């Protein structure tokens, strides 16, 4: 033990060192521009830390090693380091030395972005108001440089230092293209001294932040804006369009940042995938700063190849003591609570490279606690260390400077009392660039042993046992268990003070009075003798002394009565067990389901071979409705239809006697499964935005609609502007990731809109300035946009190149690729097709005429409530009509809507469908079809096509879906009754031969949901019982989007009436 002690000289050195720390280092030989006030005080800062366990890398350590530093750099590390005579040598026996941590996601030293004073009620801003030759959009500011905004903030730095950080990457956390980040050290020095790399990274997000501009107002708008910025920057660099664009400092800066590590911030797992997709398009591999829920979509994230920066934000348990309150916590939130601490280890298991960050924590100082939770949940200590040192250094190309302890690197290291992630270990010192920061003083005096204590005239036994760092003291005066008392102590420098409670005066055999007995004294050089003064409870001052008689820790423990100690230990373990019931390392308790919602799959179901026998089959083909017929599906396709089909081996046979088999329902107009905004309402045209970028696979309404027989939906942009965004056609493959839900090879569609919504009739008095404000203006907006698109097309051709695809402008072309005009040009070229929100006959005719003028046809009018008035014109133009069965009276432009509309259009030869535009009605579209029989008297067979074959035709997918025909996709529904009947229930729904909904399975899901809830509720109750923090549960429901919903909100409150919107 003794060799651990420092000699007097070393103590003196420590003192000097401390003194040195108070002054800044200045290199005597180096030159600098800053003048010095006073005499030059330059030092080498040469230190040797000896006898330590040095973790040179996250996965390498050297025992009994020496670390030698000088001028803030590491000179050498290892067991054979020659210590120069002029080095201050500090014995670090028993201590561990680690590279200090690196946080890549901070805003250290940078003031938060100022909020704009633009109020909601002010007129909207369409062009940036920023001074200077910058981007038109104030969310694009790549010109912002962290190094210019950066100011050393010692108080903030100290917060990081206390957690073991030595280096952070800092950037201005605002906007979409955010600018550059700087890698800085956390010691206290001038800005130019702490910056390691002023331009270390480039930063992006999909949040416009404090930009007060209208555009973008949605996630898909943010994605489009960023994509366009890449194209613009490319054009600016290659075409040097000084005549057209002039100087654009933002685009210039954007280009300059391209070779740096590109860091993209997202809020959740799906957005991480979206960011990666943008990166793929432009040849960038982003480093993605995630939201902490990555475990919900690990496979896709792994496939993205992105490295990640992961916060350790874990949701608090919910207060579920009241069973009604508990109802308000979703199973998803409960499971998230349980699994969040496992996120990091699941990422590690999946082989995803990641760094950890303190970001997103409500209180930064909880970082180490959270980290321990992650380790308790199975994250290996090596992986944890890697994620805090090696990986972050590597990600920002700073491995040459930080992240490990090697010759030539910056002297950033931690001195700890033990292995760094041990619960009892302490970080004593955090050295940054050779500057020492003391976090917890090193208790280097070994006081363990048994002492003869003389207090006044009375003799006692004083025992110091346990750890050298934190010994436990007790006094006993006999071997009886009751004759002992715990002693509090404090030892500092060469002084010691002790105190204990003399509860009863019989505690000792001296009369000293009851109360606290306080002793203060000093230690001899050899630490064997302590002497001093004591103040007794009775007010008497006496002398005291203690002499060490035994030094062996085991003997000390023995003297303290081990039996007692064992008991304590048992108690402690019992208490621990209660704190973390059932929790075992690496044992994930709740299954991860896909999607991570109730009714999700633990294992994604696969295509089956199924023979449906003896069904009434609605073929939607020439055969019409076939009675007592068999249908075989195999390999995801409809194999055969007929009587007496035999089941291939391995096939499942479903007796469909008395039941009806149809193809799946197709919803031409849906807004489910969309993330953060269904309208990009910031401009009159948003042809560049794509619903396909924001498909949300994790929407419970997908499952609910499968239970209503829906298998395919067109997810449409809203109707807030004349030219909306591009739609996505998805199959309801519940559990699959967004990209896998998309209908393969489907034609591109785009939403247009007319009437009250686009002229902002019902938006209040502050929205009266965006053109157009009347139907008259809407026509001109279309003509203007199409004319521009036409000119754009000509320009592209004029470059001598005919465009191939949309991926890049032809080589040599100086035409700026414009995503908006691309989409409009596609329409003119009949490569993209319009679904237009429409109500009154005048505007419907107008759009047909505009289309004809530009040589294309409108594909579909949706809503089209006055279609019946001009069904003949529609037929002639060749447009389809996708309408509501019977809605009206909700706004003025539907005053002449009639429920016979569908039937009339159909009778006139217009391809007609009924759609939902509504998450609730979508699961009853089969019943809506029946209304075409009720109002207008068309046949049931034709009415059924309103929700199946006809929408398939409108979406150009009738070659694959929309009827029961051999070779088509096995998207089939087994109904308990005639599908037009209100009593009919979808018993099974298949997509591509995969059974995604089954009534019996549904019952099992319900039981499993209940069981899982019950288990998690018990677990949360235990947290509260043991004094853990909990949060109040509030019911949330997924927002149901409609045509005119604005903004990015994702959730609605409990009271929100199911509101079909204003279409």
């Amino acid at each position: 033990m003794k060799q651990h002690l420092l000699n007097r000289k070393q103590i003196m050195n420590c003192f000097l060192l401390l003194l040195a720390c108070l002054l800044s280092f200045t290199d005597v030989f180096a030159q600098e521009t800053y003048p010095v006030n006073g005499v030059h005080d330059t030092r080498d800062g040469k230190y040797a830390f000896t006898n330590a366990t040095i973790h040179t890398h996250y996965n390498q350590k050297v025992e009994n090693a020496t670390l030698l530093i000088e001028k803030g750099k590491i000179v050498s590390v290892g067991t054979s380091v020659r210590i120069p005579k002029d080095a201050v040598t500090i014995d670090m026996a028993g201590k561990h030395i680690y590279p200090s941590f690196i946080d890549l996601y901070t805003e250290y030293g940078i003031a938060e972005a100022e909020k704009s004073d633009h109020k909601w009620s002010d007129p909207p801003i369409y062009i940036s108001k920023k001074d200077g030759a910058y981007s038109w959009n104030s969310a694009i500011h790549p010109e912002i440089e962290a190094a210019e905004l950066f100011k050393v903030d010692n108080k903030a730095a100290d917060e990081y230092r206390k957690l073991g950080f030595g280096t952070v990457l800092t950037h201005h956390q605002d906007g979409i293209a955010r600018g550059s980040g700087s890698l800085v050290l956390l010691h206290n020095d001038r800005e130019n001294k702490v910056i390691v790399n002023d331009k270390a990274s480039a930063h992006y997000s999909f949040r416009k932040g404090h930009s007060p501009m209208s555009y973008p107002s949605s996630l898909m708008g943010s994605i489009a804006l960023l994509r366009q910025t890449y194209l613009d920057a490319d054009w600016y660099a290659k075409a040097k369009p000084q005549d057209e664009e002039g100087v654009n400092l933002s685009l210039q800066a954007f280009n300059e940042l391209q070779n740096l590590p590109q860091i993209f911030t997202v809020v959740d797992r799906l957005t991480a995938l979206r960011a990666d997709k943008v990166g793929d398009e432009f040849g960038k591999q982003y480093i993605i700063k995630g939201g902490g829920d990555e475990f919900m979509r690990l496979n896709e994230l792994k496939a993205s190849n992105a490295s990640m920066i992961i916060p350790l934000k874990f949701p608090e348990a919910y207060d579920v003591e009241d069973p009604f309150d508990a109802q308000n916590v979703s199973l998803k939130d409960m499971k998230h609570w349980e699994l969040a601490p496992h996120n990091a280890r699941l990422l590690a298991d999946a082989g995803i490279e990641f760094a950890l960050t303190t970001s997103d924590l409500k209180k930064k100082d909880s970082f180490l606690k959270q980290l321990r939770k992650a380790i308790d949940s199975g994250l290996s200590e090596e992986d944890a260390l890697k994620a805090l040192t090696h990986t972050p250094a590597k990600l920002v190309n700073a491995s040459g400077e930080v992240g490990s302890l090697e010759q030539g690197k910056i002297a950033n290291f931690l001195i700890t009392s033990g292995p760094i992630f041990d619960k009892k270990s302490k970080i004593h010192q955090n050295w940054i660039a050779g500057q020492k920061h003391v976090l917890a003083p090193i208790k280097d005096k070994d006081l363990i042993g048994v002492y003869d204590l003389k207090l006044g005239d009375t003799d006692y036994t004083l025992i110091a046992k346990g750890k050298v760092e934190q010994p436990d003291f007790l006094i006993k005066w006999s071997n009886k268990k009751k004759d002992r008392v715990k002693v509090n102590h404090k030892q500092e420098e060469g002084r010691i003070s002790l105190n204990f409670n003399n509860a009863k005066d019989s505690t000792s055999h001296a009369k000293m009075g009851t109360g606290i007995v306080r002793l203060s004294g000093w230690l001899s050089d050899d630490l064997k003798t302590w002497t001093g003064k004591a103040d007794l409870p009775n007010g008497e001052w006496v002398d005291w002394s203690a002499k060490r008689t035994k030094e062996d820790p085991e003997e000390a423990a023995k003297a303290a009565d081990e039996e007692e100690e064992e008991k304590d230990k048992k108690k402690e373990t019992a208490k621990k067990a209660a704190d973390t019931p059932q929790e075992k390392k690496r044992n994930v308790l709740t299954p991860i389901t896909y999607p991570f919602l109730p009714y999700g799959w633990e294992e994604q179901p696969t295509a089956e071979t199924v023979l449906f026998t003896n069904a009434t089959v609605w073929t939607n083909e020439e055969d019409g409705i076939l009675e007592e017929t068999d249908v075989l599906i195999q390999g995801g396709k409809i194999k055969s239809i007929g009587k007496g089909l035999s089941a291939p081996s391995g096939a499942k046979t479903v007796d469909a006697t008395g039941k009806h088999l149809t193809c799946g329902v197709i919803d031409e107009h849906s807004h489910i499964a969309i993330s953060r905004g269904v309208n990009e309402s910031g401009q009159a045209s948003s042809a560049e935005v794509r619903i396909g970028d924001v498909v949300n696979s994790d929407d419970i309404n997908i499952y609910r609609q499968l239970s209503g027989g829906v298998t395919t939906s067109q997810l449409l942009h809203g109707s807030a502007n004349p030219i909306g965004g591009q739609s996505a056609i998805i199959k309801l493959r519940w559990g699959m990731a967004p990209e896998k839900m998309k209908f393969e090879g489907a034609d591109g569609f785009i939403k247009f809109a007319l009437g009250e919504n686009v002229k902002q009739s019902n938006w209040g008095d502050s929205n009266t300035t965006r053109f157009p404000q009347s139907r008259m203006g809407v026509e001109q907006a279309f003509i203007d946009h199409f004319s521009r698109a036409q000119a754009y097309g000509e320009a592209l051709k004029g470059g001598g190149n005919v465009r191939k695809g949309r991926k890049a402008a032809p080589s040599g072309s100086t035409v700026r690729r414009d995503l908006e005009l691309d989409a409009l040009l596609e329409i003119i070229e009949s490569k993209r097709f319009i679904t237009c929100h429409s109500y009154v006959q005048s505007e419907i005719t107008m759009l047909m005429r505009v289309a004809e003028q530009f040589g294309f046809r409108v594909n579909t009018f949706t809503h089209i409530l006055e279609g019946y008035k001009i069904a003949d014109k529609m037929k002639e133009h060749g447009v389809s009509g996708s309408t509501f069965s019977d809605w009206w009276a909700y706004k003025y432009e539907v005053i002449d809507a009639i429920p016979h509309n569908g039937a009339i259009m159909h009778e006139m030869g217009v391809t007609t469908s009924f759609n939902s535009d509504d998450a609730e009605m979508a699961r009853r579209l089969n019943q809506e079809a029946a209304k075409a029989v009720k109002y207008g008297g068309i046949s049931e067979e034709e009415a059924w096509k309103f929700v199946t074959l006809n929408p398939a035709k409108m979406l150009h997918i009738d070659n694959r879906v929309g009827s029961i025909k051999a070779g088509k996709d096995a998207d089939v529904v087994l109904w308990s009754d005639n599908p037009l009947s209100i009593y009919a229930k979808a018993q099974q729904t298949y997509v591509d031969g995969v059974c995604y909904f089954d009534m019996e399975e549904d019952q099992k899901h319900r039981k499993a949901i209940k069981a899982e809830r019950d288990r998690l509720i018990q677990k949360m109750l235990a947290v509260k019982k043991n004094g853990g923090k909990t949060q109040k549960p509030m019911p949330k429901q997924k927002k149901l989007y409609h045509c005119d919903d604005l903004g990015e909100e994702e959730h609605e409150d409990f009271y929100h009436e199911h509101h079909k919107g204003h279409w």
Partner: protein
Amino acid sequence: MTIVHSYILRAFCCLLAIGSLFALSVPQLQAQNPSVPTPGGNDEGCTVLMGGVAHLGDGTVIENSIIVFEGEKLTLVANAAVAKGGWESCTKLDITGKHVYPGFIAMNTHMGLAEVGAVRATKDNSEVGDMNPHIRSIIAYNTDSRVTPTVRSNGVLMAQVVPQGGGMLSGRSSVVQLDAWNYEDAVYQADGGLHVNWPRMLNYRGAWGGGGVEKKGEKYLKNLDKLRSFFAEARAYCAKENTKGQKENLKFKAMCDLFNGKQKLFVKANYIKEIIDAVHFAKAEKVEMVLVGGNDCHMALDILKENNISVVLNKTHNLPRRAGEDIDLPFKLPAMLQEAGIDCAITVGDGWDGFWDQRNLCFEAGTAAAYGMSKEEALMTITANPAKMLGIAETTGTLAEGKDATLIISTGDVLDMRSSHIEYAFIQGRPVDMDNKQKALYRKFMEKYGKEIKQH
């Protein structure tokens, strides 16, 4: 041609005209405005409906029925096989194979108070102020609404017209029949319901405020206290024996009928804890309460049953409020209430579509029949049960001798859109013109296109 027949003919004149069955009907068509059909005239004679499947609304079905009404009232509802006659002189309507039902009653609606959802000038369903018991919906009820005839032709013949918006006490509702010249003519029961929007327990902040949720409690209890105080003061006011010389308080005065049992309290609450508090409130106030909304009522079956509270459910065609709830919870809620012995009515609700969409009322009930109720039980949720809750069950809501001849005749099962087609309706014995603006537009354009008019 009897008067009854002429009305029926008029209702379907166009169909007949196009079918060239009765050329005589054409001049009548030109004389009418289908947007605002003319109310049926009083007929002191008697009418007999022969051979229909009668769904009485009390759970019973008479497969082959004889139904006779004279003036306003039903005089015979019987099985044709055992009925002894006496209707020989009545106007006969052979409805063999067709279905007869009591007219439907739309609860908690703003039909007639609103015409076009997004056009403020057409809306009279909400008044400013926190405590508005003095507000009466009936005087704003528009008998000439273009919407009402479209709802009526789907079988809704009566409605509880409710002032819905505003504060905690939104006002008083009246029951109307849907074939009238003016509101005084329409009124079936005046000012019978007092409507409470129960205060909200959960306070949310919008996304602009950080997207989070506020802590709950404080404001809720304050509002509750406000409500209690208001009731206490009103009760004291109404207890005064002599109010001469006192300044009249319109708000308190409007509450007196509630305290003396002439009015019912309709409380709109959806969250489980609010439902519990509302029930306790009504119990303490000793007033008769009907719960409106009731999304969470499946968690409150015991307390509802115990306190004899009936429930007006807001739509079966709804989504569960919570992601993990049974996907068919809103569909099966009526059956769950029924099984617990709680009277349940269904309405299309007080939302944005709460007036025009009442035309789908029978299908809301149909869904209840698909999910656990029998068809006859489901029928009761839009006929007998609403009548009971409104306190008008003695005279209407079921087909029974002595009650109003307010009924509909459908070609098939009225609860299923596949077969629901209402051919005739009578309100208190008066034949109802089943035409409406939408049918007229249908005819107009089918004629333009030279197409054959089919079912409408």
